[in-house]
């Protein structure tokens, strides 16, 4: 018998409150998931767009500090990019060049105007960041983590470990969802908050932090919008099979197929409503058609053109005023529209209600599947 073997001893310590099992499942799940080299690489890669956006924040604040905001606006009026940050610069320029309808009249160059413009530009940058690169990267990162979360437990009969202990079905689902929510936080919330912090740090005054304090809250709310349906859908796929490969395939296939369906339906609708091929089309429509058919938009390269076609990022930033009627078909586009509503960039119910209903339906159906499936082996 080893020296350190003290035999069996009773344990009378204080137990943690009921429900703490969810936190235990979540923390252990995150630790186990983080052991994957691929996940670490993917998260690192998912942070890379934040660097480009941080440069835009810096460039914007630099212009504000040097009193070049008015000049930027003129640049915007002229349709030029600014400060060499081409892609994102275009976004800022289009923001500046498109004052909102409810924009109050400010004295040119006043502090109020600067604050107003800053909020507008920051909001659009953060929204574009969350909608365009992060939503896509998030789908990839969740696709790496989620398929194994429940399916591997089912294959290894780990449900016996959980459900023979004081762990309820709710604890289990909450714990697993928290693992994915942690991933969502790593990919969207943290870099989003980081960008806001960068903006504050490079801004001329710390008061900017107080003036834009609602933006981090909006970042978190927008992350919840993306987290709830994606986490539940991914877990539901993981719960319906013991083969994580199948769950992974279903996950990526859903995103890809819905994206393709959305593009096809959008293009078909535009073609159906095309009144006259020779007539001048609104720039948004033209841009959409160009992108849908993969052809270069007319006037590309003409940097003096006033109304340039929307770039992917610019549309993600809510600069496209047209309503995406088929957004509800695709989770990616639905999430984007609802996030725009969270940031206050989309306030038309006819635009954000169908995607919201679509996401709610996905969440509810996934939750029902999940609740029925997680302890099904115990009941059989």
């Amino acid at each position, binding site marked *: 018998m080893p020296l350190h073997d003290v035999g069996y001893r009773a344990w009378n310590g204080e137990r943690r409150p009921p429900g703490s099992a969810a936190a235990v499942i979540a923390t252990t799940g995150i630790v186990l998931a983080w052991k994957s080299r691929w996940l670490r690489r993917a998260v690192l890669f998912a942070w890379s767009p934040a660097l480009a956006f941080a440069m835009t924040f810096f460039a914007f604040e630099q212009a504000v500090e040097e009193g070049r905001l008015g000049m930027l606006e003129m640049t915007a009026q002229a349709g030029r990019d600014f400060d060499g940050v081409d892609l994102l610069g275009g976004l800022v320029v289009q923001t500046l060049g498109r004052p909102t309808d409810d924009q109050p009249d400010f004295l040119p160059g006043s502090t109020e105007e600067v604050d107003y413009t800053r909020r507008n530009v920051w909001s659009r940058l953060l929204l574009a960041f969350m909608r365009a690169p992060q939503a896509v990267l998030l789908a990839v990162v969740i696709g790496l983590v989620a398929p194994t979360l429940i399916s591997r437990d089912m294959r290894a009969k*780990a449900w016996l*470990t959980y459900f*023979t*202990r004081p762990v309820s079905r709710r604890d289990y689902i909450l714990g697993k969802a928290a693992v994915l929510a942690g991933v969502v936080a790593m990919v969207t919330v943290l870099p989003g908050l980081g960008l806001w912090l960068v903006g504050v740090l490079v801004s001329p005054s710390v008061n900017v932090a107080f003036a834009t304090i609602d933006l981090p809250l909006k970042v978190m709310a927008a992350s919840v919008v993306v987290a709830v349906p994606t986490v539940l859908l991914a877990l539901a796929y993981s719960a319906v099979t013991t083969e994580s490969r199948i769950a992974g395939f279903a996950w990526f296939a859903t995103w890809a197929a819905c994206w393709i369906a959305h593009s096809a339906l959008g293009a078909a609708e535009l073609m159906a409503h095309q009144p006259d091929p020779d007539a001048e089309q609104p720039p948004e429509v033209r841009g959409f058609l160009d992108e849908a058919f993969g052809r270069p938009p007319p006037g590309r390269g003409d940097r003096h053109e006033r109304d340039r076609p929307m770039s992917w990022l610019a549309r993600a930033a809510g600069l496209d005023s047209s309503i995406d009627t088929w957004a509800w078909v695709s989770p990616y586009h639905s999430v984007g529209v609802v996030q725009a509503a969270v940031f206050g960039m989309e306030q038309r119910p006819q635009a954000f209600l169908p995607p919201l209903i679509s996401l709610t339906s996905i969440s509810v159906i996934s939750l029902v599947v999940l609740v029925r499936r997680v302890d099904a082996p115990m*009941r059989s």
Partner: protein
Amino acid sequence: MHDAVSSDACPVELENVVKRYGTRTALDGVSLKVEPGITGLVGPNGAGKSTLVRTVLGLVKLASGRVRVFGLDPQRFPRQVRQQVGVVPEDESSVPGLTGVGMVRYAARLCGIPAGEALRRAHEVLDWCDAGQERYRPLETFSVGTRQKVAFAAAIVHDPPLIILDEPTNGLDPIERKAMLGRLVTLARDHGKTIFLCTHVLPDVQAICERAIVLAAGRVRLSGSIEELTRPALPMHRVEGTGPLEHLADSLSASGIAASLVRTNRGPAVEVATPLDGDTPAVLRAVCEHARHVGVGVRSFEPAQRPLEEVFIASLREAQAVQTSEELHAPA
């Protein structure tokens, strides 16, 4: 209804429990009590043992009947009940990616033990289970025996008063098997645990259990103390010793005392009928006299027991006969 565990209440009590899976009846009016100590649950494959374990844990919905674990209904208070129970499942169950000690620690934390304390406690029970340095390896690399040890450690890490073990000696070598049974006896005798042992290994049940329940086709066929169950129909004593035991049997038979040579797992022995009036000392005197006469050294003289296996097979045959008869008389 109160939701506190009562330490005075019977650890497990089932009354007329019926569980059906579709048209198949897994438990058919099962009533039983598991008292403190070690109780063995034996039955053929498909007898309903695993369903019974799940019933005790409140994992399955019953068609009818009443279940109480330490006075609580496991359907209504699953968390409180499972806090009091440690389970070693028959099927291998693991959380992929964890090491042995990580698994036991995880089990402890799921039961509410704080993280630091859970690690200390995990090492303590793994030491007691003689898990050695293998505990630091991933679960997937374990041998069957080590997995069983880790599963056992995970079941007892939160110090539950009721321990349910489904085939705990599966895959263990004879030395490990003996050590495992020794641990169960220690837990029951020295720590007052109630142990419910589901197994096919009948000698294990006979060796360590105080009571046994035979379950077949979803019904309790036999239930009682091991002594009661294995008592022969007629009072008999068993004589073990050295020398020509067959001569002793012949000599006793010739003198009018019913005796026969039997083979037991401890070697040959002579079984001697004991008079119903209970005059055992007279029989013992006669046995000693005849033994001296034929040159046998008597080592022990104790009440004879039927092997549990024999009892088990007889009860199954009886159950089968009853079932056949019921099927024949059932209305078309």
